[in-house]
């Protein structure tokens, strides 16, 4: 019998992520794919891709924890755990001194405060509206015809942020178009959008309670413009892992490992 793996599958609104860890908890494979319209299919695809990386088959998975908005769509799961617990777990294992996590994904933003043992003290989530999340940035980047990965670097070159007053994604889009028409630079608008996101996240962060070290996870953590803006708003430096998107799936895989040990 070959190596046994513990799998975490995080099906989010924008992307599906899979992480395989071994019995020691070391990451053996991680994959990110777009979620698309069929969440079950996305979960299957992302897990198959991860297994392929290590040359394993589904039978090599000792336990699987599903998380994320599509967690109920994941086949063959040992159990489901919310993304809040998974991000906290992932952050705590990589950074044992983590006391807070800010996670911004496709539709959700969350602020989580942790105690010294990595247990969640309190969490806050955006509710009812996806303004200030990954989808918001995607829409704006498309409107401004800026590739998503250039949003952050270009925002950081602005001398000052443009003023974006609307928090609604649709209204903010028309506001961006008006700003362009008024001759505002793309860089200032991008900086304004990053500022707008940071202000929304900061109100969650203040409610949850922030203390160093703060880890930022989720796809939006790849955007340096947003990261710098949140650091300024929260007043604390953020630690961004190499692969911020997979933190939920990593936490899930580590919880799967705990599950199998039980």
């Amino acid at each position: 019998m070959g190596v046994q793996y513990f799998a975490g599958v995080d099906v989010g609104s924008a992307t599906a992520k899979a992480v395989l860890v071994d019995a020691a908890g070391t990451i053996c494979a991680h994959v990110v794919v777009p979620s698309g319209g069929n969440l079950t299919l996305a979960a299957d695809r992302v897990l198959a891709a991860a297994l392929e990386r290590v040359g394993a088959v589904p039978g090599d998975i000792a336990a699987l924890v599903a998380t994320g908005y599509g967690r109920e769509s994941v086949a063959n799961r040992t159990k489901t755990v919310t993304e809040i617990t998974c991000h906290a777990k992932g952050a705590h294992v990589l950074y044992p001194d983590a006391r807070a996590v800010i996670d911004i994904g496709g539709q959700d933003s969350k602020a989580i405060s942790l105690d010294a043992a990595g247990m969640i003290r309190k969490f806050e989530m955006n509710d009812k509206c996806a303004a200030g999340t990954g989808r918001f940035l995607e829409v704006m980047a498309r409107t401004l015809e800026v590739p998503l990965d250039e949003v952050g670097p270009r925002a950081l070159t602005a001398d000052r942020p443009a003023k974006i007053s609307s928090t609604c994604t649709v209204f903010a889009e028309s506001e961006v178009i008006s700003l362009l028409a008024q001759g505002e630079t793309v860089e200032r608008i991008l900086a304004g959008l990053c500022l707008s996101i940071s202000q929304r996240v900061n109100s969650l962060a203040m409610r949850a309670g922030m203390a160093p070290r703060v880890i930022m996870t989720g796809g939006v953590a790849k955007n340096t413009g947003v990261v710098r803006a949140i650091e300024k708003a929260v007043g604390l430096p953020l630690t961004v892992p190499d692969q911020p998107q997979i933190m939920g799936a990593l936490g899930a895989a580590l919880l799967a490992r705990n599950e199998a040990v039980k």
Partner: protein
Amino acid sequence: MDSGNGTALEVFTSVCDDFYATARAAAASGRKVAGFVCSYAPQELLHAAGYLPVRVLGRPGGTPRADQLLQAYACSLARSSFDAALSGEFDFMDLVVFSHTCDTMQNLADLWRSSRPNQKVVIVSAPTVTSGPAALSYYRKVLADVREQIEALSGPISDEAIRASIDLYARHRNLVQRLYDLRREHSELISGRELLAVVTSSMMMDKEEHLRLLEPFVAELESAGDVKAKRLPRVFVAGSVCQNMGFVTALEEAGCMVVDDDLCMGGRSFSLPEPPAGDPMDALVEMYLGRRPCPAFHTPGFDPGAFLVERARAARAAGVVFLLTKFCDPWFFDYPHVNKSLEAAGIPGLLVEVEQNLPVPEQFRTRAEAFVELLKAKAE
């Protein structure tokens, strides 16, 4: 559970599936019906006058009529109740009793009066500060005036009839309080959703009828003996009205047990003291001012934060979930203080804003599950 209690619970639950069906049927067969918007309405007076008192709780669905007349920050209880009234769904109510709890309700009473000229609107203005001689004498005058307004429609109400209604309501309240005690001690016997159905249906049904079903229901549960306790996190629920049963249901589906509450559709409305002897109007004054205050009122010496901590501890609750109706300003002004007391006591809290007339949002399930995970991790 045997068929007797199964049947009673079915009745309570079916009333909650369609709040007003019972009252509408009663009205169709000639019974006079009085709607009451707030639990501070002296239901005993309405009952003594021959009315079937029915709680006004809005209803599920959109509110296009009310949206024309109410500002965006009126709560979903006001909005959906008023929308139902404007569409004629509440025409079976002969009168509607409002309380001066918040600006929205105070102004809704006037709007209601002008929009539904054939429906008598009565406003009960309980004193904001509920203790002291001035509060007592003021409220005595208010209730005398309310009695006169009702009598103008119903004919004279005798003191004996009021006393009989007070006694009936007290008997019913005692039963509900016994059910709360039972759930606190043997939480596996009755779920939060079931108790919510008992309480909500009691505000919709004829009191004698509800009592007739509730007496054997409680007695049977009390004699159920030892049931194997479930090892689920124990949760206390606090909040405003909670007519949307979906939230408590989804909360329990997330893997916890609701073991006690401070809800208007719950313990708070059944916290009136035993009726004092003597003049029945004086008794009503003492009972309604002596109850556990809702956040719209102030009782000197009553600290809502300390109260919640004490109740949560007494119920051995691991956490508190606040189901606050969105835009319920009396509750939201209290919340920061109450939450601070909870944090100081080391009891985790989860705040959820509820739109009473809309389905439970998917995100609520995630937050409820995450909260249960937090409580479980804390217990380990």
